[in-house]
């Protein structure tokens, strides 16, 4: 037990170091090369040169990438725990797409603006999509197998994006905004929009952490978890609420970003074991690192343009998804 605890501490502190390194890279590297002196000026708020101004923009952007990445990583870990499905991910299960649909409809039809309203819409959309996909995926024998859940999620995503296009296309006034947001970007981040999200993110984090023990029990199967004296239904609801709030927040802030929630928990399990009390915080750190690095990569590969972070995570995450499919001998496969 002592060994487990010390190695968990080691993993977590390693994660913190990696997050700090990511933050550093994200501030220093960009589509434009900026000398060190100007970077320092930009960080101190002395915006005298173009370089310093560019760096000043990188600050909220970095904060957003780290925050959203952490939210998605935790959300993925919790979803994989609840569904006992190695392919669970807010993007693959269509939860992000549901959040996106709600936000877009809010913008287009109800003229909604304001960061807090976006957050409520995102969370509501994520919740509806999660319930819908899980309901469809668990019809019939064998419950929610990876194949059924993935298919239901894919179909829901496609349906949601078709509706989003149908809503957005005729509205030239909002089309540009929505499209940039929909690909999944952290480029336009501002502190005014990030701040209202913090309480939501905190609630999601606490719910997720609170459900760690029940997720550990659930890993042994539903019957056994009930036999161990856990209230399985309640635990699932708490855990799901945490995951939904987190990915709703992330989606409302930067649009649907796929695969972070898939990749990170698997990598964390390889290094930090399978105890959810360790896995969940690790997944948060890992998600922050992954999304931060993906954002940095997106600024480099397409210079002078910037590649949206959602495209980068899909390109990196999809092969990982395939690898996971190949590696696991899953139920229903």
């Amino acid at each position, binding site marked *: 037990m002592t060994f487990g605890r010390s190695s968990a501490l080691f993993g977590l502190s390693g994660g913190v170091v990696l997050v700090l390194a990511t933050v550093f890279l994200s501030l220093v590297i960009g589509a434009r090369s900026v000398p060190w002196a100007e970077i320092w000026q930009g960080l101190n708020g002395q915006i005298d040169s173009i370089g310093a101004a560019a760096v000043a923009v990188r600050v909220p952007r970095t904060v957003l990438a780290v925050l959203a990445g952490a939210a998605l990583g935790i959300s993925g870990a919790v979803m994989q725990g609840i569904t006992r499905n190695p392919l669970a991910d807010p993007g693959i299960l269509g939860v992000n797409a549901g959040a996106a649909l709600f936000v877009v409809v809010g913008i287009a039809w109800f003229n909604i603006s304001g960061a807090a309203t976006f957050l409520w819409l995102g969370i509501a959309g994520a919740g509806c999509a999660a319930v819908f996909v899980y309901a469809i995926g668990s019809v019939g024998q064998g419950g929610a197998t990876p194949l059924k859940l993935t298919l239901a999620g894919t*179909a829901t995503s496609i349906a949601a994006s078709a509706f989003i296009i149908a809503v957005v296309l005729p509205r030239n006034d909002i089309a540009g905004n929505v499209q940039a947001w929909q690909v999944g970007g952290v480029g336009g981040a501002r502190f005014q929009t990030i701040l209202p999200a913090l309480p939501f993110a905190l609630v999601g984090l606490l719910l997720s952490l609170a459900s760690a023990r029940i997720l550990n029990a659930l890993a042994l199967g539903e019957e056994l978890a009930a036999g161990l004296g856990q209230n399985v239904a309640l635990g699932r609801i708490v855990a799901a609420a945490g995951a939904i709030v987190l990915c709703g927040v992330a989606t409302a802030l930067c649009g649907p970003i796929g695969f972070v929630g898939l990749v990170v928990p698997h990598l964390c399990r390889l290094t930090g074991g399978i105890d959810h009390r360790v896995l969940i915080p690790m997944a948060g750190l890992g998600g922050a690192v992954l999304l931060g690095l993906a954002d940095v990569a997106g600024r480099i590969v397409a210079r002078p343009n910037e590649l949206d972070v959602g495209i980068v995570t899909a390109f990196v995450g999809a092969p990982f998804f395939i690898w996971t499919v190949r590696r696991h001998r899953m139920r229903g496969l």
Partner: protein
Amino acid sequence: MSAAEVHMALAGRRQREGRRVVLALGGLVALVFCLVFLTLSCGRGCLAPADLMAALLGHEDAPGFIVNDLRLPRAALSLVTGLCFGLGGVAFQVMLRNPLASPDIIGISASAGAAAVFAIVILSFDGWVVSAVAVVSGLVVVVMIWALSSRRGAAGARLILIGIGVSAMLDSVTAYVLLEAPAWDRAEAMRWLTGSVNGAQMGQVWPVLGALVVFGGLLAAVSRDLDILRLGDDAAQALGVRADGTRLRVTVAAVGLVAFATSAAGPISFVAFLSGPIAARVMGPSRGLLPAAGLIGAVLVLAGDYVGQFMLPYRLPVGVVTGAVGAPFLLYLIVRTNRNGGTI
């Protein structure tokens, strides 16, 4: 039943079935014809049949530009791409014994689209070359998906999941390439992401028509063996059908059809996926599934385009309309399959 009665019953059934096939296919052809006629004659306003004929025949005082340069290429492109998607889709579905294994779900449309965009934007190719690049990349992706999902045991589910992953990856490639395009307008992006026949020209139609003749012919030649393959590899081989050879030919034909259609009109969402299951419901277990699926593909594209253009408060590309119809159908199929508890 006596032997004579059985004989009569079987012969009678075959006759009825033959009639049914002819009737159903004839009905579909008539429907396609009606939709083509509708596309040609009715836009914002409707032309009288006489005016339409006059325009098609090139009379001076007829509205020749609208009919011959705008509507005719659009109708023709919808027709040929619909046929291609329908045929290619059902071929995959039958071969892999799974309606979910259609080219637009397992990543073949996505790869053809990504390759076409890459060839156009980065390599500045056009015409036949783009289609050829799309075909080659479609084949490469098929081989890749197969290699990745081949392992002894139930490969079907794994193949579909891996296809979904490949699709996601290739769509991100498409998005990246579009970002690099110098004149990146949303209409063009929409064509490559969901499919559209906006601004169709006859020059786009000919390669697809050629593909339809060549690959459709190849598919027709193997259609009987394909039908036997539905009994499983071992049974098919026992009946003298070489499973691998048949699969190879079907794959080449289906990828050719889908890739040519995609490089002309983009991966029109879900047409390849929808046509087969609808055709199976129209035709029942009788033969004629392949041509029926092709015709239904044409119906879907023609009708979807017409609805998207004129029947909604604003104009939408055909891929958005078929996507909005197809996604709920996919959900329905998943629910139905799950409830039956069998293979899809």
